[in-house]
């Protein structure tokens, strides 16, 4: 009888403790509501108005959203943003994984090499973009002059003269900067894979490729998921790299949606720019959800 009482007391105590600890999340919840939920709700409201940022706002329904899809410049910006995001996400994961596989193996100066690869990620992307502009500027950049000395400056040429080359440069600069960050996540994933599994596969006669595709890759799925999601989010909301390298030009050729939102907002079209921000939110959300679902299924 007494023991039953202890059990009941213990359960009640546990329940109380659980309830008490749940309240501990209240400050975080309040902050989340204040800085995410509330602005989001205000943003939705604002996106349905013609507010210019200063005067009175008039409710105009879904006009801003309709106008966005009729704007050729905005459609071009979606194309640029998607190409940049797809190219960056794919290359970042490939290069990051390659780096991780190389850096996993022991060799002299491994720690220093890891730091060097990771270093660009801690520098402001805006500064990084300007540094690369000084290196790559056609006819004037340091890299251009170095290649000129080697008689190969024509390969760099005027990279801003056509869209594919400009986009390639933008993506490569982004990959160069953030590959180290992707590598760190993959390295953590690789270190979590038990060496027993790989050894067992080796004893069973699996080739290097088979060990990688059948053992390493499936067990790396959580790291892949994190990298894909963060790379998609980061690349779809790209601003700094493009702003510093091309300013979205020539014309609006390489303008991303984030830059478009900023320009519309400062162009006294605050309501419209908020609507575009909502659209960008959805554009980011859809591929993130899909990639999470796909990788979770494989996981």
């Amino acid at each position: 009888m007494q023991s039953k009482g202890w059990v009941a007391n213990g359960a009640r105590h546990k329940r109380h403790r659980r309830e008490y600890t749940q309240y501990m999340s209240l400050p975080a919840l309040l902050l989340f509501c204040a800085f995410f939920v509330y602005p989001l709700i205000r943003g939705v409201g604002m996106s349905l108005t013609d507010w210019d940022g200063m005067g009175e706002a008039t409710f105009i329904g879904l006009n801003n959203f309709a106008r966005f899809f009729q704007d050729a410049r905005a459609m071009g910006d979606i194309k640029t943003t998607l190409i940049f995001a797809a190219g960056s996400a794919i290359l970042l994961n490939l290069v990051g994984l390659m780096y991780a596989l190389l850096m996993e193996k022991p060799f002299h100066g491994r720690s220093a090499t890891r730091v060097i690869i990771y270093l660009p990620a801690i520098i402001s992307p805006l500064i990084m973009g300007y540094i690369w502009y000084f290196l790559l500027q056609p006819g004037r950049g340091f890299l251009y002059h170095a290649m000129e000395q080697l008689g190969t400056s024509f390969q760099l040429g005027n990279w801003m003269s056509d869209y594919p080359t400009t986009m390639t440069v933008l993506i490569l600069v982004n990959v160069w900067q953030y590959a180290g960050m992707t590598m760190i996540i993959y390295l953590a994933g690789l270190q979590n894979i038990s060496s027993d599994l790989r050894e067992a596969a080796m004893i069973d006669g699996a080739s290097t490729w088979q060990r990688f595709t059948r053992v390493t890759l499936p067990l790396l799925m959580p790291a892949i998921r994190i990298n894909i999601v963060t790379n998609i989010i980061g690349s779809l909301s790209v601003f700094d790299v493009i702003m510093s390298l091309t300013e979205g030009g020539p014309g609006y050729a390489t303008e991303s949606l984030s830059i478009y939102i900023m320009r519309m907002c400062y162009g006294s079209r605050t309501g419209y720019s908020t609507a575009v921000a909502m659209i960008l939110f959805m554009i980011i959300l859809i591929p993130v959800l899909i990639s999470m679902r796909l990788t979770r299924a494989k996981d």
Partner: protein
Amino acid sequence: MKKVLALLLALTLCLSVLTAVADTKVSFFTGKIETIDLLNGIIDEFNAANPGIVVEQEYQNDASSVIKVKFASGEVPDVMTTYEQEFVDQGKYLDLSDMSDWWSRLVPSMKDSCTDLKTGKQFRVCTNMTMAGFFYNKEIYAKLGLTPATTWDEFVANLTTIKQQMPDVTPWFIFGKEAWHLGHLIEFIPHGYLKQTLGALECKKAMLNNDSAKLNFGAADGAMAVFAQNLLDLQKNGLINEDVLTATSDNCVEAFVTGKAAMFSNGMWALSGLLEANPDMADKIGFAPYPAYMPNSKPVVLCAEDSGYSISATSSNVDAAKAFLNYLFNADNQKKYSEALGSPSAFTDVDANWAPAAFAAEVKNVLNTAVNIGFTNEKPAGFSGDDAGRLVQDLLAGTYDAQGFAKAYEKAWNEGF
């Protein structure tokens, strides 16, 4: 002892709080980097001479954007140098029309430039004038026996001679990575033509009312298409820099002061940068108008208001703000201001050495011989000078031919309203 010390500290704290409360704080917002240090000095003098008023300067690089945020958040500065027609329309500025002490000292054309076309009132006072045209290397011109062009044919002939005689020199350097610079070319050349043919006031009205019959931006033989074709021809013939789409203003300054560029288009604000980069250039910089490029037109030079000061309509410190501007506008301060800014004063009683004497004389000569035009403040709100410049980038990148460019410009202009 401890009690006395605590009392003294509390007293000091109370006194400083009371002093802070008693002071009238005048917030002054500016985007003019050239005058920050000078104004800090003037503000210190003003604060010392006016107990009870404290002026605080805030500089923002992207002032025209930041001021919108300030208006939106209600944190509007008392005095500001940013001025937009849309803010005037929304009643953001205090009417300064009755400040006769200021207006009586101002060059009449500058007062006109400060007058809002819609209301006929003045909401800002411009302390300086700025000019824009071609800065050219007098040494190169003298060596090749060239004189500044007054017609487009002469202009092209000059550029061709430079290219042929001095192949390492860029005849006309355009820093097209910076969209505002290309936007200025539109502002000074095709818009300049419209202003001289329609007249300043009629052109302003036509732009304000989007009178397409008068503006005629999309016409195949109109000012915009001819300008675009001329630019394409120069690009095709190698008379402008190859890297026109990626060159920056720093590149331009470097090329000009080292003799690698013979000329470039810009305003007086570029002068201090040139002299800083190479003080030996002082006697070598010439100034020329934009040549006449349409039939029956004349060379054009920008002579516009610069450095405008406004007071917020919602300011609770209007008297203190006016006292500060009174102090800033006195002749001694304006002499220093003009020399720091590198542009002539708009006040008639200020005699400043704003540029090397020979250059200042040449500017004066151009102002006397070319048609003087002002900036277009009546542009549609949704089509900025940067937007216009981006269309020129597209033109130079091969997206448009001349007529396509004119049509695109007309479309963007109309959609901007």
